[in-house]
């Protein structure tokens, strides 16, 4: 897939809860194929002290409308500035970047685990993986019910479960404390996860221990996003690998976890 720099039009900027926003970007040209786990690198305009682009996972794509949806969680200056963008504004982005999750096979029973803004590629994957929804289990974790986003549009594609640290939605605790994770893990042939590092490490180590296929989407500070600066490395069994081009999706067996 050819990578391009495109000036998107910000069609919609909707606040979902305190820290999460849904941005819908429209391309002036047909959008090339993009898969769950891939990301786009967005320029933050007119922002003091923000120099580099910011990478965001793709939440959804509408090829007919030529739109890409992003779930933007405010984590720092860059993401905050982006959520302040006005509809009708032009937003430059480089895409598609990075390697996607390995799409599951027809008979796979998959477990998707998303935490924080890591829920975005999980929802996208549930939608396009092409499995019987009974074979797709999605486990979403957040601090509180107010941090969860509305997933109504994705519910037809799988069975959804929630955890919150304060117990205000779903089971109380981390995703790794959830009944699905504790009691049913060996029922799944593949696990895919994206979220905080500690969450993914815990999931990854468990998957390694039970010999279950597991892919994780890593986050890392990037400068370029397309493999020239070599800043965003992860120390893997095969040496330093760029998260932006060798990843962001890695098989846990390749990592030094």
């Amino acid at each position, binding site marked *: 897939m*050819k*990578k*391009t*720099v495109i000036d998107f039009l910000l069609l919609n900027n909707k606040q979902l809860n305190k820290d999460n926003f849904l941005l819908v970007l429209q391309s002036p040209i047909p959008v090339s194929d993009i898969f769950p786990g891939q990301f786009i690198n967005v*320029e933050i305009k007119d922002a*003091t*002290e*923000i*120099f*580099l*682009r910011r990478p965001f996972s793709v939440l959804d794509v509408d090829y007919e409308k030529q739109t890409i949806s992003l779930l933007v969680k405010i984590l720092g200056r860059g993401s905050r500035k982006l959520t302040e963008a006005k509809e009708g504004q032009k937003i*430059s982005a*480089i895409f598609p970047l990075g390697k996607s999750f390995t799409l599951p096979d027809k008979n796979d029973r998959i477990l998707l685990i998303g935490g924080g803004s890591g829920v975005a590629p999980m929802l996208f994957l549930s939608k396009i993986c092409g499995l019987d929804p009974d074979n797709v289990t999605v486990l979403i974790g957040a601090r509180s019910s107010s941090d969860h986003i509305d997933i109504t549009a994705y519910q037809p594609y799988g069975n959804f479960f929630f955890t919150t640290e304060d117990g205000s939605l779903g089971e109380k605790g981390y995703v790794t404390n959830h009944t699905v994770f504790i009691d049913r893990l060996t029922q799944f042939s593949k696990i895919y996860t994206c979220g905080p590092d500690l969450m993914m490490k815990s999931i990854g180590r468990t998957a390694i221990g039970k010999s279950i296929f597991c892919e994780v989407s890593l986050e*890392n*500070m*990037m*400068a*370029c*996003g*397309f*493999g*020239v*600066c*070599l*800043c*965003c*490395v*992860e*120390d893997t069994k095969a*040496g*330093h690998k760029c998260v932006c*081009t060798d990843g962001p999706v890695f098989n846990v067996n390749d990592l030094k976890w």
Partner: protein
Amino acid sequence: MVDLGIKIHNLDLKNPVMTASGTCGFGEEIADFFDLSRLGGLVVKGTTLKHREGNAYPRMAETPSGMLNAVGLQNKGVDNFIANIYPRIKDMDTHLIVNVNGSTIEEYVALTERLNELDKIPAIELNISCPNVKEGGMAFGISCPSAEAVVKAVRKVYSKTLIVKLSPNVTSIAEIAKAVEGQGADSVSLINTLLGMAVNAETRKPVLSTITGGLSGPAVKPIAIRMVWQVYNAVKIPVIGMGGIMNATDAIEFMIAGASAIQVGTALFIDPTIPVQIIDGITQYMERHKIQSVNEIIGSLQC
């Protein structure tokens, strides 16, 4: 039709715009974004004699109008370059220049000898200015005797165009430039990154794994232009300028200060199509100012 052609020793560049080492990979990584044959030259990723894993993560810190990096010359070594990369890129229609790094003079010489054998590599950029490696690197570029010693040794075994990349982390860059010119350098390129540091106020820890790193981006542009002007006035060999060039106006400012050619670096991270925008912008500037040859701009500073 304006003439953008520039000569750097034996290199006839179709235009003065090059991409800087460490910011364009081996060219293949940015080939999606524009036609690489438009470039005057492409300086590939820093190469060492042996495989280097580079420094530990974190290697990057964003700063106002720039960034710090501490990559530490991660690369698979010259044998891998010759066997696997060179065959893929050798027919690119632009001048391919390899950025060369060593820990000892012997390493610089051995590496240079290998590259001298490659028909489609008409020049090397001898990096005596990398601030992110413990041995060698910048250590060679911060004193006249050590800079002279490494250039002298390499010059003995390298017959093609020898560009020496200078460090800004010195008291007098013009003195270093004169020293390497005296040992047979065909051109000097400047500036490499400025040694900097970032601190996390919350954790009271350095942001980079190496504590210090190299600052690049628009934040360093005024320093780079000052140094290009000083070096231009001190040597007779062509100067290649770089440091925070983000657009054609920046490039022209460097040329007015004395740069025969320029390298675009960190800007590629923000917009990988910037080199062609700069080439087009220089053309428009020349048309607007009725300048026939781009050589008329070089060193045209009026003060």
